[in-house]
């Protein structure tokens, strides 16, 4: 260890040759290998990487929270220097010293706002706890200070909020409470581990703004752990890129985007979907993806326009589809409230076409998918498949419909049965629908499907846990294709994947569409992916479509204020760009309404051929 503490005198935090190990069944696993970086006071350092890159472990190791997850720091130093005082090596600090620093000098925000707050204590109690512990305030003083903090993170009605419980707050509000809690003692360093990943884009934009503003106001340094290059471009001063537990590159943010040095960084950046990358082009497009092959990045796939849609006769026609759920009952079982998940939604999907259904949580986009897959009964409206009315179908016809409409779920980990081989999972739809009786022929079909999704035939004998997330999603796609469907509903199917995997799966879906003339209903919140994959786009807000039209029209000429807000909220992976001037405020309203209070159905007008927009006055009335 040649580095002495004095040499990085101006750094607030110096991580030096840090290695972290976890004990596993087959010996120790090195999660972080020899990683070093500095954090300057008041600056933001982004640590980026994909799942398994060691970025989260690094963030936990700084405060030695890895002690509680079975991790062991095998070598290195974490030198922390608050206010120019003498450096403390957190790796060797006593438990008492560490407790003094945690929550006081260094604070942390975690990824999942829904599970970060303790469900059994009030918001006020949880914020005050830190203040009482570190600042020696009494209960009353701490409560007053907690109220100020809630106002600082722009939460309305802070007084009442103090006595509320986490489950009474939305995800965005909880993450703001978490920020208030982390900033309670004016920490010198804030570690934020994917703080906006689980949030809707408009809420993400608000949270990023709050973190940035408070950072400037309080002079806090931030370590921002993320996989989202858009967020990096908007937030970071410097970037550390991690890959397989090692730091492969470190540079100021502009240099990382302008001149990435390491092949992995280049591959990562090439895979990032960029909003506006297809401006001026009417059709979606496949583009090559850089994939790491050992230590070098190799391009996979070619450039290909996706001219597959056939607009003569729609495969699916949805008309005034309405789906509501009863919630809240009186003592005598009378319904008091309903979730108006979907309200009079109409759209068509044509053969070979991808229609993207975009919206935020509570917009009703997933309910539409589930209704089409017959997992949810609609309350009203008609759905026609190939001209036949779904509501008028017999049981046998409905079963056959399940074979023609298939579903790919969001979570490839949860949607495969861990106790069956993947070959069995893929063959199941074939067996259920009685498509191929002969077992040899069925096996051949499974091999063929595996081959089509880019896997090996011999993978059929393996179990889901032997595959990575991306491979599992390929298996799910193979299963969806097994019954030879015409329409595939992909519900956030690429959202949970790392960007390089995501880009490959998107390419795979497009390739399969071309080969098999598949129609996709692509349900997502990610506008950048939508731009790449879809022919037409429907924007949903509170159960209704507010804008529907060709992709180019939606992205280049958005008409509805909500569509504009959604587009403005997407972080752009380009640090040169001016930050969006639009200040996004407010929560997404709830689709739950008392019985008898029906939402207003807004009218649509056609602004250009095929481009429909809700009349704004109607929308506002509907949301009120």
């Amino acid at each position, binding site marked *: 260890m040649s580095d002495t503490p004095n040499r990085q005198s101006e750094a607030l935090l110096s991580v030096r040759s840090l290695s972290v190990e976890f004990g596993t069944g087959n010996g120790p696993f090195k999660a972080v290998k020899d990683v070093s970086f500095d954090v300057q006071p008041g600056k933001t350092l982004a640590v980026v990487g994909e799942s398994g890159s060691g970025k989260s472990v690094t963030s936990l190791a700084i405060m030695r929270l890895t002690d*509680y997850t079975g991790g062991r720091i095998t070598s290195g130093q974490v030198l922390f220097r608050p206010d120019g005082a003498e450096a403390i090596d957190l790796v060797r600090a006593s438990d008492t010293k560490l407790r003094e620093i945690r929550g006081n000098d260094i604070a942390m925000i975690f990824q999942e706002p829904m599970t*970060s707050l303790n469900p059994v204590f009030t918001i006020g109690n949880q914020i005050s706890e830190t203040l009482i512990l570190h600042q020696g305030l009494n209960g009353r003083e701490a409560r007053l200070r907690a109220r100020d903090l809630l106002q600082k993170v722009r939460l309305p009605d802070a007084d009442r909020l103090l006595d509320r419980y986490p489950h009474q707050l939305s995800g965005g509000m909880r993450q703001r409470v*978490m920020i208030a809690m982390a900033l309670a003692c004016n920490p010198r360093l804030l570690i934020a581990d994917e703080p906006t990943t689980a949030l809707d884009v408009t809420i993400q934009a608000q949270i990023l703004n709050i973190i940035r503003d408070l950072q400037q106001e309080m002079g806090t340094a931030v370590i921002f752990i993320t996989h989202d290059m858009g967020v990096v471009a908007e937030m970071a001063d410097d970037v550390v890129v991690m890959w397989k537990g090692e730091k492969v590159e470190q540079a100021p943010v502009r240099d990382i985007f302008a001149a990435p040095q390491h092949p992995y960084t280049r591959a990562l950046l090439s895979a990032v979907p960029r909003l506006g990358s297809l401006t001026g082009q009417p059709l979606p497009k496949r583009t090559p993806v850089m994939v790491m092959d050992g230590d070098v990045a190799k391009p996979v796939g070619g450039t290909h326009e996706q001219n597959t849609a056939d607009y003569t006769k729609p495969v699916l026609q949805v008309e005034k589809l309405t789906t509501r759920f009863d919630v809240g009952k009186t003592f005598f079982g009378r319904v008091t409230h309903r979730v108006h998940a979907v309200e009079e939604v109409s759209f068509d999907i044509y053969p070979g076409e991808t229609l993207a259904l975009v919206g935020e949580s509570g917009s009703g986009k997933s309910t539409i998918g589930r209704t089409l897959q017959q997992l949810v009964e609609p309350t009203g409206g008609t759905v026609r498949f190939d001209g036949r009315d779904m509501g008028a179908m017999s049981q046998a016809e409905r079963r056959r419909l399940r074979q023609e409409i298939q579903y790919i779920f969001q979570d490839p980990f949860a949607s495969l049965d861990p106790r069956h081989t993947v070959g069995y999972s893929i063959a199941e739809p074939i067996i259920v629908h009685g498509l191929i009786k002969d077992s040899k022929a069925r096996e051949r079909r499974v091999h063929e499907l595996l081959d089509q999704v880019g896997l090996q035939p011999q993978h059929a004998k393996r179990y889901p846990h032997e595959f990575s997330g991306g491979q599992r999603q390929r298996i799910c796609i193979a299963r969806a294709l097994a019954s030879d469907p015409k329409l595939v509903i992909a519900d956030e199917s690429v959202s949970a994947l790392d960007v390089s995997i995501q880009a490959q799966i998107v390419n795979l879906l497009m390739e399969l569409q071309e080969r098999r003339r598949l129609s996709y209903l692509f349900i997502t919140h990610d506008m950048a992916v939508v731009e790449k994959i879809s022919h037409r786009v429907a924007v949903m807000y509170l159960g209704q479509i507010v804008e529907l039209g060709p992709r180019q029209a939606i992205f280049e000429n958005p008409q509805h204020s909500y569509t504009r807000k959604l587009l403005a909220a997407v972080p752009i992976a380009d640090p040169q760009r001016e930050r969006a001037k639009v200040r996004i405020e407010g929560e997404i309203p709830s689709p739950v309404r008392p019985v008898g209070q029906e939402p207003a159905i807004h009218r649509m007008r056609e602004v250009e051929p095929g481009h429909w927009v809700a009349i704004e006055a109607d929308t506002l009335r509907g949301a009120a």
Partner: protein
Amino acid sequence: MAGFILKRMLQAVFVVFAVTLIVSFAIRLSGDPAVILMGGGGNITEQDLQNIRQALGLERPFYVQYLSFLKGILRGDFGKSFMGGTPVSLLIANALPATLLLAFTSLIASIILSVPLGIYAAVHRGRWPDQLIRILSLVGLSFPNFWLAIMLVLLFSIVLGLLPPSGMEGPESFVMPALTMAVILTATNVRLVRTSMLETLSQQYIMVARSKGLRDRVVLYKHALRNSAIPLVTYIGLQFGGLIGGIVIVERVFNWPGMGTLAFDAISNRDYPVLQGTITVLALFIVLINLLVDIAYGLIDPRIRTE
């Protein structure tokens, strides 16, 4: 929450009602009290038996007997014992405190033991304290309670002569019956606390609590325990039923003057009123405890309270 409690109370009334019906019906299948009362004396005529049945009111149809029993309950009158004519309510009043005292002593002892042990095992998951606690709890689970009771008597009363082998005289006579019950309760509860704690400790809010710089003790006993308590409280409510069942046997072995002994004798003697009375009162307690458990949920978990 109030509606929820009200619903549970209505359910509770129904459950107690159903229990009385089943007990009254079932005991009448078990044999004729008149024969037992005659004590197998030499020359009993059918007429003698008929007279006894008449005196006890047993010749009436079942529904009439049952209705009069129900009417009695509403007035707090459980009838008189067939053996000696003591009012059943008096017998219960004498026996109930002994049983409840024993039940709650065992329950509280097991909670005091199992919560810290379970937490300790969870925190040291996979290491030797955890292994030791798990093995001991398995050993505890494997003892049949009557066998454990007899072994305790052998050791502490006969070999060492430290504790009275039976009866209820003074605090030392509590030790063995309560210990017998507590060992088995603790053995199950330790495992439950451990599992529930492991689940809670893996939650993100625990890591958040640690990142605030809280002491381990505060993290475990403030942030984690209350979240782990829900399954534990549910289980203790359910356990209370089993506890009462186990107590019948333990009371027998230690000759404890409680409800178990009372019920056991009532069965042997076909003493319908006593059995109906004891079972009804015990059922009432089990139902009451479970009602308290439902209320406790609301106190522990705001998600239930504010629903």
